[in-house]
């Protein structure tokens, strides 16, 4: 693994000048991914924040080949790129290894792109799919997705006087994709760049489909100050709301275990989308959310103990 110094001395392939919001977590994720993957890489992005901010014609933030097709089909599109890569390799037109990385937000991955992703994983294409999970449709203005946390206020699950935010727990996409029995599926978060770097490196070293679900704090949609992105990211891991773990060849491994699991409310109270939950009458929602975090964390630990 490269040191931070080595990484920082490499040429940026996802360059500055893009138009993301200050404090955007997703751009950190993409920039690091590009640094780790290097210039022999093709990126395929789903419609969403990252495509919109990085490729406003006639400008591009990409110094590596980049393709945007539509919203729901980044994985299928990358399948096609990979198929041509295989065809060219077979007839000797390409000899070097080229990484193929698809990415999408949670809308393009958990929801509308779920079928396309499932298909690509099942067909065993040699590609890495990265979900930058900012837990709602941020590009269209903060609408709920199946990744939005329980109780969160979005513009389509607003904190109303009768219904206090999103009424469902998020889909466990990491486990759903791991259930495709792919060689490597993982969860990561941008504050822990060492862990993230290792995961991207591992994923790219594997011949087969790999998936990394990266929590992507969004100052605009989560409503926190733009200088708190890494703090919010870190607390998500420390509260075990977003465990950093991986599933390699069917075996779960926790990559970060907090010495002391922090209460979920510490993470919630940093973010405006949960502010209505701090009201006494919504206390039960925080309790239920905490119980769910505990249940999932226990389950994960049991799987690790059982070596499955």
């Amino acid at each position, binding site marked *: 693994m490269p040191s931070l110094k080595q990484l920082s001395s490499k040429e940026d392939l996802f360059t500055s000048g893009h138009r993301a919001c200050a404090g955007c977590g997703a751009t950190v994720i993409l920039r690091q991914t590009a640094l780790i993957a290097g*210039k*022999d*890489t*093709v990126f*395929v992005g789903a419609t969403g924040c990252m*495509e*919109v901010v990085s*490729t*406003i*014609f*006639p400008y*591009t933030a*990409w*110094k*590596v*080949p*980049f*393709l*945007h*097709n*539509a919203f*729901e*089909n980044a994985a*299928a*599109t*990358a*399948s*096609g*790129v*990979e*198929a*041509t*890569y*295989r*065809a*060219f390799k*077979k*007839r000797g037109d*390409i000899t070097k290894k*080229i990484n193929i990385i698809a990415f999408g937000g949670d809308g393009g991955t958990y929801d509308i792109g779920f*079928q*396309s992703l*499932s*298909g690509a994983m*099942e*067909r065993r294409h040699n590609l890495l799919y990265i979900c930058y999970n900012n837990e709602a449709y941020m590009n269209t203005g903060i609408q709920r997705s199946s990744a939005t946390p329980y109780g969160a206020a979005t513009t389509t699950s607003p904190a109303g006087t009768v219904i206090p935010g999103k009424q469902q727990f998020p889909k466990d996409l990491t486990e759903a994709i791991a259930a495709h029995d792919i060689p490597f599926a993982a969860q990561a978060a941008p504050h822990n760049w060492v862990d993230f770097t290792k995961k991207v490196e591992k994923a790219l070293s594997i011949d087969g489909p790999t998936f990394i679900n990266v929590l992507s704090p969004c100052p605009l949609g989560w409503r926190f100050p733009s200088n708190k992105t890494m703090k919010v990211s870190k607390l998500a891991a420390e509260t075990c709301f977003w465990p950093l773990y991986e599933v390699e060849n069917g075996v779960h491994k926790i990559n970060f275990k907090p010495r002391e699991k922090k209460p979920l409310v510490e993470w919630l109270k940093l973010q405006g989308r949960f502010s209505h939950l701090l009201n006494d009458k919504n206390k039960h929602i925080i309790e239920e959310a905490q119980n769910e975090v505990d249940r999932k964390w226990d389950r994960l630990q049991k799987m690790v103990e059982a070596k499955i």
Partner: protein
Amino acid sequence: MNKKIVAKTGNEAMAEAMRQINPDVVAAYPITPATEVVQLFSKFVADGRVDTEFVAVESEHSALSACVGASAAGGRVMTSTASQGLALMHEILYIAAGLRLPIVICEVNRSLSGPINIHCDHSDTMGARDTGWLQIYSEDSQEAYDNTIQAMKIAEKAFLPAMVTCDAFIISHSMARLELIPDEEVQKFIGEHRRPYALLDVDNPITVGPLDLQDYFFEHKRQEIEAMKEVKASIIEVATEFEEKFGTHYGFFEEYRMDDADSVIIALGSTAGTTKVVVDNLREKGMKVGLLKIRVFRPLAYEEIRNALKNVKAVAVLDRATGMSSFGGPVFHEIRSCLYESEKKPFITNYIYGLGGKDIFPEDIENVYGELAGIIKEGKVEKLVNYIGLRE
């Protein structure tokens, strides 16, 4: 040249053309009545008769999405579909054309739900007529085969995607005589595929499919419009080369006994074949009838069609799709529009027929010619939009 004479269905003919083209990537999904194309091609892959990377996707949406990725990467790319499949691809049809990716679809014309029906009409491709794809309609298996080979070359010359169609079951599943061009001659004809910009050329990175806002989008669309105009020259060039090498003449449309014709039917696909028989019969009876069979519907050869109809007195456009405009079918609209500048406008009438695979018989077509003769005699069109063989 030694052409091999075989008996093949339309699906088999298109699959043979795909085999001989030997694309880098085929991403496809089964759908009646085009399933056989995908099946046959899978067998070619399994038996090592092609070098193609076959991607058996989980939907038509993903089929065309993968084709876009494969083509943008630099590959020669094909797929096959029909009906609901083409409808599911609809969103990506525009993207493939807008990104100027020369993908070829072997399309079998089938009606669209609902209610569900698996038989022939042209609703599916007519619904895709504004997507920026070339559309080439085939009268029989031979044309489906010849058109597929030509479409690949035209598409790659013009950087525009193309769909070649044939009628569900009537052509796709009917055995007919087929002259096969030798494999190596097909390869020589289509040539090597070398793209100036490809994603896999990582040393020259490009961004494909960027966000294109108010300041450039329209300019890019204008380029696409111009390409659609300019491709007409490529269509003729490719057809001319095809005729020189393989002996069969193709154009934007076929004029059948049009020389001194007063009454003309305009049709696409297999119905043109039936109409030819009727024209021959009526000519024997001394009626001045002819057929204009549209082969290339996108781009439409407006001027050439207008010119071909300049001495005609009455035209009946046969539409195997409705368009639901309350004013006739899509082919009718376009033909009527291209006649607006004619010095001597012929009478024009529209016949919607064969939706959901309802048969059209020679007698039906004879009736249409009879009605055209009546229109010429009476000097007026009583009913602009008519239906053939329909219980009312």
